[in-house]
Structures are given as structure tokens and as C-alpha cells.
């Protein structure tokens, strides 16, 4: 038998038809939808007069366009309220399960899918959201799609898709103290650039990946899109199975044992061919922070922003435009630079593990007066757990307030905006111009680096405070 990659195994077993000279018709096991990218898809179904083919294989939530305060009140902004109402209406009409605002299982789409056991190894998963790659942490082929494609999947449970090339990124060695999976992925993106994996599906492997928890793996897969990759995935293993065993929806299924046997086969065969292979050493990775306006513009926190001499001529204009927006100059050091906002949350770092790490760091310390902090759990479940474990109380003592779940300041569709010109250390995934509000300046980092900035009010190496 020809050795196959994990990606090939999953993709190939889901091909319903190969169109000659064209894309594959790929069967989708699970779709997630949310309020922002679905209304036009439902409108399309209505215009065609057709139903949703498999409503049980789509799960809906409201997350992008909702407030993170007073969620029991009607949404103030009329357009946002209308969009959320539309999803309620559409899911009722088409028979789709909807975890809307105030539902006990509501949350960010990429947090609740895994949490509630909808995401499983070996699946094909899509959502009208580029961070769908998150679900790849379970050994599934998961990728973001546009609204026309959401409509395709609603209508036919299939999508027309060209098969991407395959890349394997192996991370050897062991992480230093104070360095997290967020730093691994920010480091990789800084090495290969924001478009460096365009056209590829990435498998992450190696000892530094295999030892990570499921939530840390999700952080890595989540940001695959930030280097242009179609998606990212990690072979399921004992850590995956242990995580799944704690989810009632999964473990209570009568065929759980036989499923697990199948999942054990989900790994790349020895000798399987990748179109590109990259290797990194985890031991060399330091806490990372971004200085520019795409996630590839990142450096170790104690390094300097590249000097103009380090930038190739064709990139100079974009580089300078980016630094001008950020209010930075080439070659400057970032440590000690004042910070105005700190955001902990998003589908990248809004899980319980992230809240625990942040809380442990700020415990017994006080938030700096110049910092406005937004601590936003990724789901109702995470919120409840944070309260139950006492994290909310510790946070409160340190001067932080726990918000209600949602995408919040990651894309700032709601009121959680960073004002123009202000600096935000953010655990989210994008530092694009205006991403956190018009004129906002985003510095992407790990929950630990965010916690360090929240305490000192400036860009701080979290390792300095861990050793105190």
C-alpha cells in the first residue's frame, strides 16, 4: 500500500466525486454556523425553495456580533439585534439546533464545538469562519469557507473544493518555562510569513506538539490560517482520547469503543509524502509578540523590531506603512512600551486553560491603573467553570472583571473596541489595521504575556515575573 498522510486519509475517504480537471465534491460531516456569515446562505436556500439537506449535521451559535455584558437584555444595536434574530428565525425554520444568546451551551463557535463533542477525529468540518482550523487539533480536516459555500453545505452536505497541497511542521525539543503553544504558533508564522503556507494543509507533529494539552493544540491549529494555510491538524492520540472521554455526548455513544479503534489509525504513515516539510526547535522559542499589522510580523519579546536594512526592498513600503500605523520605528525595542488595553479571550485563547494560566499569573498582584482589561470566556461553560473554580474571585481581587462569552474584542463587532491609537496586548489571532476598532494597535501574544502587561502596564517578558 502507498503510504498516506493523515490529511489524505481523511480527505480521500470523504470524496463523493472527483470532477475531471476540477475540484473534488467533498462530503462534510459537521458544519458550524454563526450569525454573521449565514443569513445570505439561508436567503439563498429560500430563493431556490430548497430545504437544509441534513439539519442534524449543522450546529448554530451567536458569537461574533453580541455584547459581552448584560446578555439578558435586548441587544442595543439594531443591526446586530436583527442579525442575531435572523439566525434564530432561520434555525427554527430549517430545523437546526441553535445555542443562542443565554442558552447554557452558548459560546464561540470554535470553543463550543469541541467542548460539546461535536468535533471528533476523522471528520470533515466547515464553518463560515477562517478559524475553523481550530478543530484540526482533534485530527479532523476542518477549514473556513465563504457564505456561498455555507449555502452549498446546507443544501447538499457537500462542498466543491480543490485538494490543497500538504505540509508537515515538526516541532522538536521542549518548551522553556513561560513559553506557551501561542508562542510556538506565533514563532512559526514569524518564520514563514503570513502567506507562507497558502495553498497547503498543515500537519503539526513532533515531541513539542505531542506533549501539549488539547486546548494548547487548538491554539496552534486555530492560527494555521494566519500563515495562509487552508487548515492545520494534529494526529489524535491518548491525550485526545482522554479529553474526549470527559465529554458526555461522546463517551455515552454506544459505539464509542469501536470509534476509538478507528481513531487509532488516524496518523500519517511512515514514508508518506508531504509537498513541504519544516522543522523547528521548541527550546529556542521565547515568548513572542507582534509589532506590525499582520500575524507574521512577530518577534521574541526581548528582541528589537527589524531595522530597515533587514527588510527587502519590495517589502519596504508595506513594512513602513505598518510601523507608521503602529506608531513604532524600525529597530526599536518593545520591552517597556506602555500598554493601554489587555484582551484575554477569543477562539485562540478563550478556553479554561487560558483563564487558569492568566489567573494564576495575576493572583496576589494588581492590575496596572493605566490598563483597561477585557477578560472574556470563550463559552458559557468556560464562564461557569471559571466561577466554580474561584478564578472569577481571584481576578476580581486583582482588579479584573469577567465578561460574558463571545468573540468580543477579537474583531470588535460589538462595543468591546480599543480606541484609536491605543495599544492592546491581545491573546486573539489578528493584528490587522483596525481589527480591534478603527485606529486600534494590536500586539498579539500569549495569555502569560497578556497577564504580565496587565500587571505592569507595559510590554513585559512574563518570564521576569514568573521568577519573582
Amino acid at each position, binding site marked *: 500500500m502507498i503510504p498516506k498522510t493523515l490529511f489524505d486519509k481523511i480527505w480521500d475517504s470523504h470524496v463523493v466525486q472527483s470532477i475531471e480537471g476540477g475540484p473534488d*465534491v467533498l*462530503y462534510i460531516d459537521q458544519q458550524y454556523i454563526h450569525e454573521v456569515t449565514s*443569513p445570505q446562505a439561508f436567503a439563498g436556500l429560500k430563493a431556490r425553495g430548497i430545504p437544509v439537506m441534513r439539519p442534524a*449535521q449543522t450546529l448554530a451559535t451567536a458569537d461574533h456580533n453580541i455584547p459581552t455584558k448584560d446578555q439578558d437584555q435586548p441587544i442595543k444595536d439594531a443591526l446586530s439585534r436583527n442579525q442575531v434574530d435572523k439566525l434564530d428565525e432561520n434555525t427554527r425554520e430549517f430545523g437546526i439546533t441553535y445555542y443562542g444568546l443565554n442558552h447554557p451551551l452558548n459560546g464561540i463557535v470554535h470553543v463550543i464545538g469541541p467542548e460539546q463533542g461535536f468535533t471528533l477525529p476523522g471528520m470533515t468540518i466547515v464553518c463560515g469562519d477562517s478559524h475553523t482550523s481550530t478543530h484540526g487539533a482533534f485530527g479532523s480536516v476542518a477549514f473556513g469557507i465563504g457564505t456561498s459555500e455555507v449555502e452549498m453545505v446546507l443544501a447538499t452536505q457537500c462542498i466543491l473544493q480543490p485538494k490543497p497541497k500538504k505540509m508537515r511542521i515538526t516541532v522538536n525539543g521542549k518548551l522553556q518555562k513561560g513559553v506557551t503553544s501561542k508562542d510556538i504558533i506565533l514563532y512559526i508564522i514569524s518564520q514563514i510569513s503570513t*502567506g507562507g503556507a497558502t495553498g497547503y494543509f498543515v500537519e503539526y507533529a513532533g515531541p513539542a506538539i505531542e506533549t501539549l494539552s488539547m486546548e494548547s493544540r487548538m491554539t496552534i491549529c486555530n492560527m494555521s490560517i494566519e500563515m495562509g494555510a487552508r487548515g492545520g491538524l494534529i494526529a489524535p492520540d491518548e491525550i485526545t482520547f482522554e479529553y474526549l472521554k470527559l465529554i458526555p455526548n461522546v463517551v455515552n455513544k454506544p459505539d464509542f469503543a469501536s470509534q476509538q479503534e478507528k481513531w487509532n489509525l488516524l496518523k500519517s504513515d511512515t514514508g508518506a509524502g508531504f509537498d513541504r516539510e519544516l522543522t523547528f526547535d521548541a527550546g529556542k522559542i521565547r515568548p513572542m509578540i507582534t509589532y506590525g499589522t499582520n500575524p507574521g510580523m512577530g518577534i521574541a519579546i526581548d528582541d528589537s523590531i527589524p531595522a530597515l536594512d533587514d527588510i527587502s526592498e519590495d517589502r519596504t513600503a*508595506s513594512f513602513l506603512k505598518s510601523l507608521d500605523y503602529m506608531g513604532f520605528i524600525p529597530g526599536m525595542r518593545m520591552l517597556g512600551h506602555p500598554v493601554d488595553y489587555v484582551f484575554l479571550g477569543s477562539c485562540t485563547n478563550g478556553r479554561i486553560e487560558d483563564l487558569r494560566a492568566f489567573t494564576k499569573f495575576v493572583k496576589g498582584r494588581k492590575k496596572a491603573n493605566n490598563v483597561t482589561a477585557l477578560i472574556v470566556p470563550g463559552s458559557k461553560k468556560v464562564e461557569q467553570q471559571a466561577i466554580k473554580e474561584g478564578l472569577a474571585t481571584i481576578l476580581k481581587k486583582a482588579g479584573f472583571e469577567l465578561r460574558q462569552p463571545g468573540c468580543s474584542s477579537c474583531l470588535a463587532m460589538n462595543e468591546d473596541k480599543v480606541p484609536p491609537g491605543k495599544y492592546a496586548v491581545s491573546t486573539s489571532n489578528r493584528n490587522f489595521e483596525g481589527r480591534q476598532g478603527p485606529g486600534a494597535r494590536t500586539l498579539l501574544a500569549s495569555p502569560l504575556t497578556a497577564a504580565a502587561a496587565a500587571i505592569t502596564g507595559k510590554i513585559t517578558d512574563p518570564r521576569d515575573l514568573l521568577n519573582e
Partner: protein
Amino acid sequence: MPKAKFDILESRCVPLPLENVDTDQIIPARFLSATTRDGFGENLFRDWRYDKSGNKNKDFVLNDPIYSGQVLVAGKNFGSGSSREHAVWAIADYGFRAVISSFFADIFRNNSLNNGLLPVVVREDFLSDLLEEIRKKPETMVRIDLGRQLFTILPVGKSVSFEINPYKKECMMKGLDDIDYLLSIRNIITAYELRNNPGK
């Protein structure tokens, strides 16, 4: 459902020589609350096109009367970031029918093809030449012949061929729609389900 067909387009160009133009720049998130596909062109490149007070930013190319046309010429890795199809709707609603770059983000490219906006990939040196030509002569006309997969800078007669998936090419030229195709093979899809028992 039938869509607009794309065959041959002759037009002037609008140059945007920046790399990594992300979909948050093309259409900022705060304009994504609409529930229809219409009207996004008004806010295309909103924060580059207008200043904080809502006045037109004279330096931005869409506000420069020298440049016009249905072809947007952009730096590499155009359309990176969010999967929002609103970015494509905004570009098309503004009046563009094709975007030229040396490479596109994957989701953006798929979204473009699904909306009759043609993404044309050219080599980086050709892209530089084209941008230089437009800079020197903003009235430069180009011709995109989808049938022959040929992009030509008309005044200098310089041509380059471009790749497009044959299935997608046919869809663009005939104004066909993926969903119509998928609905036509429903029996094959249900046969797949019977064999594989998905969703279980």
C-alpha cells in the same frame, strides 16, 4: 441559479501596490451586520478611503480621479485573513470584475470564483511591470480573455497566460452555479451516505 457571465473584459486598472491586503481592510468587521449581499461597495476599503471624520482621503487610490476601471491590481497575498465573503461582495458591488495579483489567499480566491469576480494570478515580475505601466500611464487598458486564459497590457501588447481550474472556468464563462451542480448529483451524495454512514 444563473450568474453573470465572464468572457472578455477590456478596462483600465486601479492600482493598489500593497502586499498582504487583508479582508478586514477590504471590508471592516463593523460593516458586517447586514443580512443581504447588497450595498457593501459603499464601505469598500472604508478606513483607507475615508478619514476619521468621514471625509474622503485624497491619497487613497479609489479617491484619485486619475484612476478608474473594472480591474483592481494588487500586491501579493491579496485577501488574506477572514473568510468573510462580504469582501468579495464589496469589491464586486463597487464595480470591479477582476482582481490581478501574484497570489491570493485561498478562501478569498474561492469566494471570488463563486461570485463571478475573476482572480487572475500573474508572476511577480509581470505584476511589477504592470503596476509600473499603470503608474506611468494611468489610462493603460488591459484585456482579460478568459476563454484563452490570456491577460494583455494592450498599449504595449505584452501578454501573459494565467491558470484557472477548467471546471471553474466553465462556471465563470457560462454563469453556472456550484449549488445547481451539487443538487444535480444528489443521488450520488445519498449513495455516499448509505455507504459511509456519516454523522453517526
